[in-house]
């Protein structure tokens, strides 16, 4: 029998608005990580020499988030020399992929205690700072890449989803997130503190009061890309499409924020040695590749693949956390898999709280675990879409 991979903890920073003036703008990305490393060590009185590796995702591995920010953070945080680190990129799915890879290493028996997570300071690095191989013209001629937002609008057009549908979903996300915050459901949040121990930011900053009327007034975010040909380019893959409606706005797309996440994964034996209590086990994980131009259709097949690997059905899953990259992504997931409202993103998601690209996967996994515990439920699934048509899913089960 293979070793089980247990989740011993999943923590995250609060999410600060990803712009100048945002609550975490003054904080360097490496300090976001170090806050979590300090907390992880303190919460469990960890012998850091027993943590073998840290896989840390980021969407912009450049400048102050550049090269191997994981190892830099470990050295800087005075963890054991024995702990190694690696930077990882899987577009928006990085942190969840880090968790899955950590679990895989543990299950394989190659390593026993591994950290996984991600970090993103969008206020300091922005989007696109690290460049992209896809930005090359010759590559572009062969890839049919479009703005993700146009992908979301296209997805909505294909599904017959309207502006009202996506705004309604967005309003629900805000309401659920506000309620969860007010009732203290986000137990995985670790406040970000400065070098003196003074709290810089202790809560998610982006959640805002809204209404259908207010949402309806927002201008579409991605029309410019359509005007510059992205819709026409998408027709190479979707010749049945004539025109699309630009329905995604800042109100019903994921927000731009800063933050970091960290998950401690290990074997039963390693946990015992450190006196750790397992909170859940990783049941199965899945990665899928789907049509890359629209790029947002990975979640459904990823979920199906993870279920199949685990021998489970949709009914066996008590709660779902699907990253709210764009409202249309969630609506497709919900419709195609017939997910009841009360099981899906019950505490809101990235539309309300933001999507710190590389870090989000660890965050939604932590939110999922907190909520399973709070409701005393058994199984949950975290799922995401990512660039290039990648879909990712992780099924966990409380122990």
């Amino acid at each position, binding site marked *: 029998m293979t070793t089980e991979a247990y989740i011993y903890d999943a923590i995250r920073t609060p999410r600060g608005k990803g712009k100048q003036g945002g609550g975490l703008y003054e904080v360097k990305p490496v300090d976001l990580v170090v806050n979590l490393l300090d907390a992880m060590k303190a919460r469990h009185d960890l012998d850091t020499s027993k943590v073998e590796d840290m896989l840390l995702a980021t969407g912009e591995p450049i400048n102050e988030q550049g090269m191997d920010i994981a190892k830099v953070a470990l050295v800087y945080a005075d963890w054991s020399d024995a702990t190694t680190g690696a930077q990882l990129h899987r577009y928006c799915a990085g942190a969840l992929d880090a968790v899955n890879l950590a679990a895989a290493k543990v299950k394989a028996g190659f390593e026993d205690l591994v950290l996984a997570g991600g970090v993103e300071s969008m206020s300091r690095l922005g989007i696109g700072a690290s460049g992209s191989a896809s*930005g*090359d*013209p*010759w590559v*572009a*001629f062969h890839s*049919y890449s479009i703005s993700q937002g146009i992908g979301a609008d296209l997805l909505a057009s294909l599904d017959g989803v309207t502006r009202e549908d996506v705004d309604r979903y967005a309003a629900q996300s805000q309401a659920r997130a506000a309620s969860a915050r007010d009732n203290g459901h986000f137990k995985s949040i670790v406040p970000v503190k400065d070098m003196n121990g003074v709290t810089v930011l202790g809560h998610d900053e982006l959640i805002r009061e809204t209404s259908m009327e207010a949402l309806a007034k927002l201008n579409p975010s991605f029309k410019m890309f359509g005007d*510059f*040909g*992205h819709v*026409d*380019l998408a*027709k*190479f893959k979707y*010749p*049945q*499409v*004539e*025109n699309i409606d630009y329905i995604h706005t800042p109100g019903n797309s994921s927000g731009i924020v800063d933050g970091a996440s960290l998950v401690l994964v290990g074997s039963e034996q390693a946990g015992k040695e450190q006196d750790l209590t397992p909170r859940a086990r990783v049941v199965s994980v899945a990665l899928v590749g789907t049509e890359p131009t629209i790029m947002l259709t990975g979640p459904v097949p990823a979920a199906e693949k993870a279920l199949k690997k685990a021998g489970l059905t949709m009914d066996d899953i008590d709660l779902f956390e699907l990253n709210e990259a764009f409202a249309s992504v969630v609506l497709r997931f919900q419709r195609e898999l017939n997910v009841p409202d009360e099981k899906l993103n019950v505490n809101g998601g990235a539309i309300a709280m933001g999507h710190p690209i590389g870090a989000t996967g660890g965050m939604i996994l932590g939110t999922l675990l907190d909520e399973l515990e709070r409701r005393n439920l058994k199984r949950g699934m975290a799922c995401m879409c990512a660039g290039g048509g990648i879909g990712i899913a992780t099924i966990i089960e409380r122990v």
Partner: protein
Amino acid sequence: MGYIRLEKDADGIVELIFDQEGEKVNKMGDEYIEAMTKAVDEIEAMKDDIKGVYIRSGKSTFFGGGDLNKLLEIPTDMSEEEKTNMYNGILNAKAPLRKLETMGLPVAVGINGAALGGGYEIALACHYRVAIDRSDVKIGLPEAQLGLMPGAGGVVRMVRIHGLTEALTYISQGKQLSGQRALDKKFVDELASDEADLHAKAKAWILANPEAKQPWDQEGFKIPGGSPNDKDMDQALMGLLYFGPVNVMVQSNGVFPAPKAIFACISDVARVDFDTAEKIESRYFLSLLLSQVAKNMISTFFFQLNALENGASRPSGIEKTDCKKLGILGAGQMGAGIAYAAAKVGIEVVLKDISQENADKGKAYCQGVCEKLQGRGRMTDEVAATLLGLIKPSADAADLAGCDIIVEAVFEDRKIKAIVCKETEAVTDASSVFASNTSSLPITELAEASVRQENFIGMHFFSPAEKMPLVEIICGKNTSDETLAKAFDLSIKLGKKPIVVNDKRGFFTTRTIGTTINEGAEMLLEGINPVLIDSAAKFNGSPVGPLNALDEISLATAYKNGKQEKADVEATGGTWEVKAAGILLDRMVEDFDRKGKIYGAGYYEYPEDGKKYMWPGLKEHFAPNGYKEIPFEDIQDRLTFCQSLETVRAMEEGVITSVGDANIGSIMGIGFPAQTGGVIQFINAYGVKEFTERAKYLAEQYGPQFEPPQLLLDKAEKGETFQ
């Protein structure tokens, strides 16, 4: 084998003179590479004893491009070794130019005629470029127009001279400049009045600039407008590199390889040093040499078009004729467009209609065309006045006296056509030609109204006639060679491309485009998603889809023409064949009152405040239980194969005999995808045998309209292409 002469003058300047033996124009090929390599080596050996190098031509023109005949012979499926040899050959063509520009001697070039393609690439490698200020001294890199790109350092140097944005414009549009424009746009550094002045200016510069170096070989050189490598990249450049490829794809439907290679190459060569850049350029260039599209385009737009313009389809032995006065019957949009085209080239025009008012409307149309150009600064008031002054609107047939040629552009009704023919012939000379601008009525039958049937011919212009380049000339049974020659010469004078076909209802272009319009209707009636039908045409590389095309022409017009044709066929004892296009038109016009774009409702809906979209009623009426799914590739092929197959049938029937005329006519007249090289080249490039097999498959799946005709079967059997 003589190609290059080296002559040292009294000032110690070596003249490198291109004068390829046995050729009218210097060409870039193996002989050039060998001669140039040797010449540059010789110059290097004497470099300490000379002041500089002056490159010029020993012919009346400067230098042409590559040898296109050789390019056509390059197979598309070479071994790696063969391709490596070709790649090395490309590098070898560049090597002497690079050596010369870095030798430490000032190098100037004197451009005394066309310097296009390879010729201008040689000039670009010189430190100083002087050209004679004369309209025939055309300078530029037109390779893109034949599906190619510069491959002898042209891209590398243009990027470094002009920056990425401008280099992209010049190379992808194949701009040719002369005189002041060439100077203003930095294509040349100085203008000269004549040959003597040319040599003097170039040599004076050499003597004054002993330390000359290319900008890109100087310390601290930066590409104008920035490079993609810049840490803080110029915003405009960033926008170009991000949205530019999208634009190329959307504008060309992705079917042309050259614009893609040029764009990518321009970006790539800006990222690396000069010598690496030359390698990269060679790789992109080779990719185009190996592409089928470049072969299609060279074959059709160079060889076949040249042959057409040189009169391959014009009867030989008849002296060139010159139409000085043209009569046009019918001052509608077609007649007026022809009048404009004729007046533009200085032909006196009588534009006749049944009333002065109608005739005046025709002239007003011409005025409108002028005003549009004047508004954009593309026509002077003087030119417009002269042009309009040549057009005499009239309601009096007597004004037609003295016309060399009459073009009849009245309604497609035999009776009306017969009346105007008789009326005209009563006043015109016995030598004057009567040309009917019918799009489908048999010329031989129309000629029955004429007392001079040998002077009667068809000249089918395309709308808008002031713009569309094609004229389909139709010979009736009794049309004389002299008449054909006159119609042909007039077309050339109008700046049009005349193709010559024989007489049968629908001729070549109308019957051919009819098949794709009909296939679109066929698919719609089968319950295929109409959006996919027009998308398929678009991704084939057609300017518009069949449904869109009919909306533009207007369904009402097509409906009326169809009824007219049916009446005409039946009246002349024929049997009218009911086709999908007719059935669909009947339903659209009679049942749904959807008459086309100008009526605000056709296959598409035309909302006032938004983009047009397919009328949902099409689904409701033709696919009530959901669309029929067939492979998208099949939809695409149905729209092209029907046209190629119809062309082969027209060939079997002797309607069209020239492969070149068929190719050019299909692209310039009826929007067959240009990258294919035309309806027949499409078959050749597909592989005659493979095309035949595919046609058989389509016939099995979708109907007998795809059954390969005997001529095609025979060609496939014998393994022949259409030549």
